[in-house]
């Protein structure tokens, strides 16, 4: 009949629950459907609370009126909301707005495409220029390398010629004695000082 609240048994619930007792309800916990009625409840007849007819009539009228008004208001509001929604989607303004938006979109897309084309052209030009630059640089580098190689070869050739000249002055078995005599006859002295022009100003004397 009534609902169980929490606790294990009816008595415990009644003890734990507050005195204002909205939560506490009676519970068919101990007895089942088939148990006989208690002795103290044998002749009990359940009687509903007494009702004053006049009062009931008045109350009923007032309640119907009240409910009518409230229902009407509620439905009015609902209808308003629906109407607004409907107008939003398929009203006279909606078409105009949709058209305008479509126009705008088209215009923007067109502008975007223009921009893309412009940038594409600029990019192509730029890339071309860079490619040309790179080509030129490569060619220049190649020429530079060539030149350097040539220089190198020339330098080496000059060195070889110089050495070939100097070989004539080298010491061999034949001129060994002669060179020794020459060296012993001409002592060299490297102890000199030079000024900024490269002239010798001082020289130590060889003892």
């Amino acid at each position, binding site marked *: 009949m009534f609902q169980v609240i929490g606790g294990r048994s009816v008595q415990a619930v009644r003890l734990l629950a507050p005195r204002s007792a909205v939560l506490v309800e009676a519970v068919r916990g101990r007895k089942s459907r088939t148990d006989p009625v208690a002795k103290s409840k044998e002749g009990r007849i359940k009687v509903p609370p007494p009702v004053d007819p006049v009062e009931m009539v008045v109350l009923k009228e007032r309640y119907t009126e009240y409910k009518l008004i409230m229902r009407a208001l509620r439905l009015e509001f609902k209808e308003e909301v629906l109407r607004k929604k409907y107008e939003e989607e398929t009203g006279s303004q909606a078409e105009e707005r949709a058209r305008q938006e479509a126009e705008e979109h088209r215009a923007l897309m067109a502008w975007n495409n223009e921009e893309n084309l412009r940038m594409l052209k600029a990019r192509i030009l730029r890339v071309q220029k860079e490619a040309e630059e790179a080509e030129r640089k490569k060619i220049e580098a190649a020429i530079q390398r060539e030149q350097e190689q040539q220089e190198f070869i020339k330098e080496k050739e000059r060195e070889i010629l110089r050495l070939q000249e100097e070989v004539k002055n080298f010491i061999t078995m034949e001129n060994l004695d002669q060179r020794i005599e020459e*060296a*012993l006859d001409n002592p060299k002295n490297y102890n000199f000082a*030079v000024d900024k022009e490269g002239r010798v100003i001082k020289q130590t004397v060889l*003892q």
Partner: protein
Amino acid sequence: MPRYELALILKQMQRPETAAVLRRTVETLMERGALVRDLENLGERQLPYRMTKHNQRHSRGTYFLVDFYAAPSMLAGLLDHLHRDVDVVRPTVLKKDAQSSIWTSLSFLEDVSPLI
């Protein structure tokens, strides 16, 4: 081949003996495959300090400069040989750079280019 310079300090000797030492040094060099370029005499002079070699104290010596082209592998053997030579007071082998050669020849004095 790299270019080396042998700064040789010889004992104070008479001229024929010095010539003999020089001759045998250059011959050793050439035997070991060096190409002797030039032989210079820096004179007989007082040594900067007294040097002892082969149980002899030297205060005067003759300086010679031999530049030659040689393989690096023969230098160790050459120096060993020179250390054992009784008449040699101090052998020193130095490498010659392309730049340092400007100082050994006096040709730079004929150049007009400034030093600095």
